[in-house]
């Protein structure tokens, strides 16, 4: 199972979502975009287990994937 966490405008827009099974981040994002087309128009970064990932990354059982809209702190 993959844990998916959303933040900022993505949390507001998508709320609770159903997480598809996926072996890596590229697959996960592809499936999520099919399920939630709004993601096509949204800019976001990915973190796996609290680490930013920019390349396709394998997902392990019980890992946590975060969808992060552009930061706007401070």
């Amino acid at each position, binding site marked *: 199972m993959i844990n998916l*966490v959303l*933040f*900022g*405008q993505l949390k*507001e827009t998508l709320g609770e979502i159903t997480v598809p099974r996926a072996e890596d981040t590229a697959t996960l994002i592809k499936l999520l975009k099919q399920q939630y087309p709004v993601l096509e128009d949204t800019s976001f970064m990915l*973190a796996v287990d*609290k*680490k930013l990932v920019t390349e396709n990354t394998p997902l392990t059982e019980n890992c946590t994937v*975060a969808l*992060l*809209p*552009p*930061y*706007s*702190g*401070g």
Partner: protein
Amino acid sequence: MNMEKKIKSIFIEGPIQPSFIAESIQQHNSKKEIGAHNIFLGQVRADEINGNKVVAINYSSYEAMALQEYHEMRESIFAEYDLTCLHVYQSIGKVAAGEICLFVFASSKHRKTAFDACEAMVEKIKAGLPVWGQELFEDDSSQWKTNK
């Protein structure tokens, strides 16, 4: 000996109070090798967007990740600058226009180091800390802030 350094939280619920900043300054009184402090404060602006005024910003964060990122930023600043102290506080939750939402405090022997390190840390925070601000308007609408 426990070598693992506990990562102190940087988050404060609501606005950062001037009295908190004063206490923070006061605590450096005993560090007599410090000659210069530089402090950055972010204050929520009552920006007007299409005639609609921002009354507050509601901040949220991915706190567990933010603390890891903060720790790395801090290490890299200490590696680059000869600092005595570096402290960062970011508000979480609602901060009204006119109130303080970010407090970055760098202390060094000399002024140039304090200025440069403080500014570098603020830039790192703006670019790399997973925090989101939602601007709340006077007509109860809202929009997500974007950093420049």
